[in-house]
């Protein structure tokens, strides 16, 4: 058996992390992207820059700040402790928070582009037909922005799969809890177990490729269907 139990556990944790992160980001990222696409406020560009930050910041910077922020002396850690909770570093929840920040632009930007592409016209038409703002959002904007949702979900998921730097900094490499696949690969490479490293890397490569192929394939279909 080329895949050990610990490797399989790492794979499962990675999938769980990516699924939860994508779910959370779709829920929180959709209203944010909608606001970014529709708002005419002068200082919107500041929010856009903040959303894009994880694209350019090295993951080690994010991980380092998170380690300090989540720690007992940091702001988030202090709030958690005051509420009777436990600090979040070295926990799966901590990884979800880190991943959500890390993958934020990959979800918000495609959604924002999709909402912008919908334009004013269909929404105005719906409004003249007495659709409420919520109705307009769910029955007009969301269906029209469907390719954007697909791209956002797949990119968010795939990007979290490949996450390494943030997890390395705040995960603590606990088997069955915070050891994700990229960390397991790193461990194998460092301890010269190239066979296992190859086996795990191949899974990640294949999986990421299939995901991206799906999203590009479907996007082409959507484009052909829509005039």
């Amino acid at each position: 058996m080329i895949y050990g139990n610990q490797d399989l556990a790492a794979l499962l944790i990675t999938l769980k992390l990516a699924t939860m992160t994508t779910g959370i980001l779709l829920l929180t990222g959709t209203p944010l992207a909608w606001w970014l696409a529709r708002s005419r406020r002068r200082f919107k560009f500041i929010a856009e820059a903040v959303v894009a930050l994880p694209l350019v910041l090295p993951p080690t910077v994010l991980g380092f700040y998170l380690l300090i922020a989540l720690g007992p002396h940091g702001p988030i850690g202090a709030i958690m402790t005051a509420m009777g909770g436990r600090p979040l570093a070295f926990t799966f929840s901590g990884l979800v928070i880190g991943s959500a920040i890390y993958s934020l632009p990959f979800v918000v930007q495609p959604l924002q582009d999709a909402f912008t592409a919908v334009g004013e016209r269909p929404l105005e038409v719906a409004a003249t037909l007495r659709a409420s703002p919520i109705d307009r959002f769910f029955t007009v904007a969301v269906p029209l922005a469907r390719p954007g949702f697909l791209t956002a979900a797949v990119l968010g998921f795939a990007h979290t799969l490949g996450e390494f730097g943030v997890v390395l900094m705040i995960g603590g490499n606990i088997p069955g809890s915070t050891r994700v696949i990229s960390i397991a690969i790193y461990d194998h490479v460092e301890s010269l177990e190239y066979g296992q490293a190859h086996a795990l890397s191949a899974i990640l490569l294949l999986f990421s490729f299939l995901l991206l192929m799906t999203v590009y394939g479907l996007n082409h279909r959507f484009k052909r269907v829509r005039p």
Partner: protein
Amino acid sequence: MTITRTAMAMVVIFWAATAAAAEIRVAVASNFITTIRILGKRFEAKTGNRVRLVSGSTGKLYAQIRNGAPLTAFFAADARRPRMLEQEGVALAGSRFTYAFGRIILWSPTAGRVDHEGRVLNRGDFRYLSLANPKLAPYGRAAEQILRHRGLWQTLHGRMVRGENIGQAFQFVNSGNAELGFVALSQVISADGGIRGSFWKVPRTLYDPIEQQAVLLRDNRVARAFLSFVRSDTAMAIIKKSGYAIP
């Protein structure tokens, strides 16, 4: 006129200085980085050559060296990797020597957290214990041996957080995210020999000696000079003061 002349003189001096002074690139295990920085400065002041340092875990540096990283010498945290490099013909035969024996310490930045016999480990009134990954780092392996010796390896398994190297293990404790951890004595000892926080200096009978060896990767005059400087009495005194036992 004088300005041009001064400028020209400066260019000549600069050119002469760069031509005479050579630069070596030294890979060093994370635990030894602060100490070798001091040694490097001394060597630079003495000879005018430059010592550039690349730090990381011994395992990673080993893999990079085997794959052709342009490094002149390697200060590992163990004896195994330098020996392997020698056997593989990557390192220069006969250049290998022991420069220090690492000492491990159970440490917390909080006063009174760790007692002088390490009984805190058995009491278990902490959430996380940080250590370097035993698979990758010699200091991690030593920590594992100590915990096994105490019969706590299985009990504490769920509370251990593993740093990729001893530097990260230290960072986990120092940031307060783990209450205590096994770190290198050299990481917490101050210039006057004091240690802040609370600690247990683990008796050396509880773990195999962490024999740290250095090896030459290229036949280079300056690198040879640097390695023999490290073996000098002056350098050994610095290494000892930094929290290591010396050969």
